[in-house]
C-alpha cells in the first residue's frame, strides 16, 4: 500500500496535465501564413483565427481618428498578392516606416472581403542592430 497512493495521484496528475496540454494546443495554436498562402486558403479557413505575415504598403495606410480605425494593405513579401486589413485601435510605432513587415492576427470577414485584425505586430528588421554598416 505504502507508495501506491502517491503513484496513483501522480498518474492522475499526469493525465490531467496531458488533457490540459491538448485543450491548450487546440485553443492556442493557429496558422502562421504568408499573404499568398492565406489568400489561397481563406475560404477553407473561414472564421478561424490566423496570423498573416506581409509587407505593409505605406501609401495605403489610413487611420480614422474619429472611429480609431486603421485600414491598410498587406502585401505578400515575395509575390504581388495583397490583403486589405482593418484594425480597431491606434497604429503601432514604426508602422509607417519603409519596408516594414507586420504580422496581423485575426480572421477573414467574407462578407466585406477584409481581414479583421485583433492584434498587429510590427517587425522591423533593424530593430536592435545598426541600419547601415559603416555610416
Amino acid at each position, binding site marked *: 500500500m505504502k*507508495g501506491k497512493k502517491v503513484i496513483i495521484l501522480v498518474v492522475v496528475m499526469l493525465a490531467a496535465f496531458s488533457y490540459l496540454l491538448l*485543450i491548450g494546443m487546440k485553443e492556442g495554436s493557429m496558422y*502562421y501564413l504568408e499573404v499568398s498562402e492565406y489568400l489561397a486558403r481563406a475560404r477553407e479557413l473561414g472564421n478561424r483565427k490566423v496570423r498573416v505575415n506581409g509587407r505593409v504598403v505605406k501609401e495605403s495606410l489610413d487611420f480614422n481618428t474619429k472611429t*480609431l480605425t486603421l485600414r491598410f494593405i498587406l502585401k505578400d513579401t515575395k509575390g504581388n498578392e495583397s490583403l486589405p486589413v482593418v484594425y480597431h485601435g491606434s497604429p503601432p510605432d514604426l508602422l509607417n*516606416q519603409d519596408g516594414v513587415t507586420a504580422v496581423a492576427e485575426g480572421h477573414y470577414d467574407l462578407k466585406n472581403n477584409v481581414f479583421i485584425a485583433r492584434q498587429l505586430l*510590427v517587425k522591423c528588421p533593424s530593430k*536592435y542592430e545598426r541600419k547601415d554598416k559603416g*555610416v
Partner: protein
Amino acid sequence: MIEIAGFLLLLALILSTAISLSLVYGLYKRDGRFIDISYRGSKGVFVLLSTTVLFMIYFFLTDDFRVEYVASYSERVLPVFYKITGLWAGQKGSLLLWAWLLSLFTFITIARDEHRPNRYYLPYVLFTLNITTLFFLVLLNFVTPPFEMSTRVPADGNGLNPLLQNPGMVFHPPTLYLGYVGFTIPFAFAIAALFMKDLGEWWIKKTRAWTLFSWAFLTLGIVFGGWWAYRELGWGGVWGWDPVENASLMPWLTSTAFLHSVIIQERRGMLKVWNIVLILLTFALSIFGTFITRSGIITSVHAFGQSSVGYVFLGFLAVVVVSGGYLIWSRYEKLKEKNPRIESVLSKESSFLYNNIILFGLAFATFWGTIFPLIVEAVKGIKISVGPPFFNRVNSPLFLLLIILMALCPLLAWRRTSWQGIKKNFLMPASLMILSLPILLFSGVRGFMPLFFYAFCLFVVFSLIREFYIGTRARVIHRGEKWVSAFANLLSNNRRRYGGFIVHIGIVFIVIGLAGYGYFQFKESYTMKPGDTVNVKGYQLKYITLQSVQKGHYTGIGSLINVYKSGDFIGSLRPEKRFYKRQEPTTEVAIKSGILEDLYLVLNGWESNGVITLTVVINPLLSWAWFGTGVAILGVLWAVYPVKRRVSETALLEKELILSLQEAREI
C-alpha cells in the same frame, strides 16, 4: 590599444586551454602541482577578462568608434550611463560580460576552497567551469570578436536603439546574466559529484548560497524585464508568453523546483538523481534560452540581431546534455541504492514532490509551447504559431495548484499527517479563506480563476500567519520570551525556513499583482482637442496642450494631461513620442502608479490642429507585483545571511570530517 584588448582575449583563451590540459594531466597522474597551477591559472583568466571589460568600457566612454562594436551601439551625445550599458547592448559585449562573470565566479569558488584540507572535489569543479569559460573564449576569439575594427571609422556612432534607452537597460540584462551565469557553479559541483560517484548532500550544501544567489538574480532579471516591457509599447506588456520571455522563465521554473527538492534530499536523503537532473536542466535551459534569443529561430517581439552564434550555443547545449546525461546514466545504479520511499500522500515530503511535478509540468508546457511551431514546421512544412491562449490555459491552473500547495505545505507534517492533525491545522486558515470570499466578491473580483487565485493567495497568507504565530507562541510559553523578541528569535534561529516563508509571501504579492493586471485591465481610446475632459473610471483627464521639448539627443512631443480624481487634482502626466536623430521614433508612455491601480496613458498620435488620440489604460494592483519581488528578495537575503560563526565552524569541521572519510574510502 584595441589590438592589446584583442590580444588579452587571445591570451585568456590560451591560458584557459592550458588549464584544461593541466587539470586533466594532474588528475590522471594524481599530481597536485599541476592542479595548483590550474588554480592560479584560473585567477589569471579572471584578471585578463577583467582588463578586457575595462578596456571595452573605456572605449565606450571615450567614443572610440574605431571599435566596430562601440560604433554600432553608441554615439557622442549618448548619456554616460547608457554608454556603459553599451557593454551589453549587443551580442559581442553580452558574451564578453558573460565570460567575465563566469571567470569572476570561478575565481571566488577557487579562492574560497583552495586552502581547505579536503578539496579533492575542486579540480573537477574547476574542470567544468573552465570548459564553459573556454567555450565563451572560443566564441569571443573566433566567432564574435568584440574588439573588431570598423572598416571605415565613422565620425559618430550609430547610437543606442531608443527602445533600449530606458532604466530597464541598466538593470534587466546584468541581473539576468548574473542569474544565468550563477547557476554554472552548482551545475559544476553536480558534475563533480557525478564524476566522483558521490551524490551525498555535500555538493548541495556547498552550493546553497550560490543557488539562492542565482535564483534571486534570475527572479530580479525576469521582473525587471517585465517592468521594462510594461513601459515599452509593442512589447506585449509585463508578460506576453513570447519565446524570449519563456526562455528566461524555463530555467527559473526548474531552479525553483531544485530549491525545493534539495530540501528533501537534505532531510530524508531522497531524490538524489532528480536533483542532479534539475540542476543540469537549469543550466541547459539557460544555454537554450541564449540559443533562442540569439538565433532568431522563433519569431519574437523582442527581436535580437540574428546570427549564427545561436547554433554554436546549440552545439554546446548538445555537449552539455549528452555528457551530463551519460554521466547520470552510468552512475544510475549507484545512485538509486537506499532511496527511501515517500510514505504518505499527505506529508511535507509528498507536498514537495507535487511541487516539483507541477513546476516541472510548467517548465515542460512552456518548452512545448515555445518549440512546437518548430516541430510542426520541420515535420509538416507548415508554419503555425502558439499564442498566449495556450500558455494561459495550461499554465494558469498549474500556477493555481502551486499556490494551493504553498498554503498546504506548512500545515502538513513530515512523513505523514493524521486526519486529526489536518483538521486541527486547516480549520483556521480554511475557514478564514471561505469567510473572505464574500469580501472578494464585494470588492469586484469576478470570474472563476481570479476568485480562486485571490482566495488561495489569502489562504497562503493565513496559513503562514498561523505558522508564525504558533512558532512564536511556543517560544513564549516554553522559554518565557516576550512576544516581540520571541518572534525575532523564531525568524533568526531557522533563517532558512522562515526566509523561505518570506519568499512565499513575496510570491503571493506578485500573484495578486499579476492577476489584477491580467484579469481586470481596462483599456479605452479617446480623441480629444485641447481643453477637453474625459471621465474614465473615476478619473477626470483634462487635455491641456501639446508640447514639444528638446532634449540632448531627441525631441519629445507630448500632450500635457491634468489628472483629477473625484474633482481633486492629483498630478500631470505627459505621454509623448520621441524623435531621435538617427533612430526611429518611439512612444513613451506616462504612468501614475498607485497602490490600488496604475493609470497608464499612451499618446497615439496628433493632428496639426492639436487634436490627439489618447489611450487610457487602468491596471489594477500591478504595483503589488513589484513590491512582492522586493519582499521575495529580502526573504532570500534572510535565508542566506551567514549564521553565527560558532555554529558554522563546527558544521564545517563536521563536513571536513565527512569529506575526509569519503576520501579515505575512495582511495
